C-alpha cells in the first residue's frame, strides 16, 4: 500500500498521523474530517473517535478480565488466570508499597489501572501499522467513503489527548491531596518558602511552580513522545515495502527488530507512568520533602 501511485511518502505519513476526527467544521458542518487540515479547523469542539474507541475498548478489556478474575478470587490454590492477575497486582502493590509512604486506598487501584491500560494501549503499536487502518478504509469504502480520506490511528497513546487526559487527572489528584494533606497555607508555604527562605519568595515560587507544572507535562509528553516516535519509525519502515525484493526483506527484518525492541519500550513506558504517578502522589502526601 505504501508505494501505490496515488500516495506519496509524505501523504502516507500524514495519513497515518491523522486521527479520525468527528466534529463541526466551519464550512462543511458536522461530520468526519477529510484531512488533517480540516481536523485542525474543527478546533476544540471535535472528538477523535479512533482514540476514544480503542482506549475505551482496551480499558474495558482490562476491567472485564480483571473483574472476572476478581469475582472468582480464592485464597486457596489459584488457577491460571488468577495467577496472572495476582502476579500483576502483586507487582503493582509492591511498587506502591515501595514508593508510597502514606495511606491512601486510591493509589493502588490508580497505579494498576494506569499500568494495565497504558500497557494495553501501547501494545496496539505492535499490530502492523497498515493492517487495521487499511481494513477500516476498505470497510468504509463500502459505505461510499474514499479510503484515502478515512483516517484511523489505533494506538491511543500516540494521541496527546489520551496521555494529557491521564496526566491531568493525576495532576488533579496531586493538587487535591496537596491541599488536603497540607492545607492551603501549607501548600502555599511549600511553594514559596523554599529553597531560598522567605526573602527569595518570587524565585521560590518560580522554581517550585515550574517543578509542579512539569509533573503533568513530563508524564504526558514522555509517554506521548515515546509512542509517537515508535509509531513513526514503524511508518518509516513500512515505507520501504513494495519497491524491491531487497527492500522488502530489509524492511521485514527492521520491522521485526524494532517490534522486539518496542516490546521493551511499551512495557517500560507503562511502568514509568505508573511509578511517576505513585511518586508524585507520595510527594503530595508528604508534609516536607
Amino acid at each position, binding site marked *: 500500500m505504501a508505494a501505490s501511485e496515488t500516495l506519496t511518502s509524505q501523504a502516507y505519513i500524514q495519513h497515518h*498521523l*491523522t*486521527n479520525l*476526527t468527528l*466534529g463541526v467544521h466551519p464550512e462543511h458542518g458536522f461530520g468526519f474530517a477529510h484531512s*488533517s487540515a480540516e*481536523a*485542525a479547523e*474543527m*478546533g*476544540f*469542539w*471535535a*472528538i*477523535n473517535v479512533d*482514540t*476514544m474507541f480503542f*482506549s*475505551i475498548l482496551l*480499558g474495558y478489556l*482490562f*476491567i472485564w478480565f*480483571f*473483574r472476572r*478474575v*476478581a*469475582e472468582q*478470587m*480464592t*485464597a*486457596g490454590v489459584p488457577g491460571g488466570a488468577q495467577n496472572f*492477575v*495476582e502476579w500483576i*497486582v*502483586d507487582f503493582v*502493590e509492591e511498587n506502591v508499597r515501595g514508593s508510597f509512604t502514606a495511606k491512601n*486506598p*486510591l493509589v*493502588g*487501584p*490508580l497505579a*494498576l*489501572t494506569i499500568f494495565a*491500560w497504558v500497557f494495553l494501549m501501547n501494545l496496539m503499536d505492535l499490530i502492523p501499522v497498515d493492517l487495521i487502518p487499511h481494513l477500516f478504509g476498505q470497510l468504509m469504502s463500502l459505505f461510499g467513503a474514499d479510503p484515502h480520506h478515512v483516517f484511523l490511528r489505533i494506538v*491511543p497513546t500516540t*494521541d*496527546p*489527548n*489520551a496521555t*494529557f*487526559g*491521564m496526566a*491531568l*487527572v493525576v495532576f488533579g489528584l496531586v493538587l487535591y491531596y496537596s491541599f488536603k494533606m497540607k492545607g492551603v497555607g501549607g501548600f502555599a508555604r511549600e511553594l514559596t518558602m523554599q529553597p531560598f527562605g522567605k526573602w527569595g519568595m518570587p524565585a521560590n515560587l518560580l522554581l517550585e511552580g515550574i517543578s509542579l507544572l512539569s509533573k503533568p507535562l513530563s508524564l504526558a509528553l514522555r509517554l506521548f513522545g515515546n509512542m509517537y516516535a515508535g509509531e513513526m519509525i514503524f511508518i518509516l519502515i513500512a515505507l520501504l515495502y513494495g519497491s524491491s525484493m531487497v527492500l522488502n526483506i530489509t524492511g521485514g527484518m527492521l520491522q521485526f527488530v524494532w517490534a522486539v525492541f518496542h516490546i521493551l519500550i511499551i512495557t517500560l513506558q507503562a511502568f514509568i507512568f505508573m511509578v511517576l504517578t505513585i511518586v508524585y502522589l507520595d510527594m503530595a502526601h508528604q508534609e516536607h520533602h
Partner: protein
Amino acid sequence: MNINLTLFAQMIAFAVFVGFCMKFIWPPIVTALAERKAKIAEGLAAAERGHQEKALGEQRALVLIKDAKAAAADIVAQAQKRATEIVEEAKADARSESGRVVAAAQAEIDRETNRAREELRERVATLAVAAAEKILQKEIDIKAHKGLVESFAKQL
C-alpha cells in the same frame, strides 16, 4: 494531533476506569492475597510447631526408653538374685531332707538289726536246747536249765 474535546472524554474515561478498579477489582484481589499470605504464615508456623513438638517427643521418648532399660536391667538382676537364692534354699532343703532320710534309715536299720539279733538269740537258744537235747539224749528239764541256757545265749 490536535488537542480537542477528546482530552476531557479521556479524562472522564480514565476516572471511570480507576473508580471501577478501586471499587470492584482491587479490594477482592488484595484481600485474597492478604488472606493467602496469612494462611501460608499460619501453615509455616504450624509446621515449625510440629517440628518442635516432634523434637520434644523424641527427647521424651529417649528418656522413657532409657528409664525402661534401666528398670528392665534392675528387674533382671533381681530375678537372678532371687533365682540363686531359690537354688540355694533348695540345696539347703535337699541337704537337710537327705540328712533326715539318712537318719531315719539308720534308725530303721538299727531297729531291724536289734530285732534280728533278738530273734537270732531266741532261735539260737531254742536250737542250742534242741541240739543239747539231741546230744545228751536225755530229757532235760527246760525250766531247770533255762537260766543256764539264756546266760549262754547272751554270750553270742
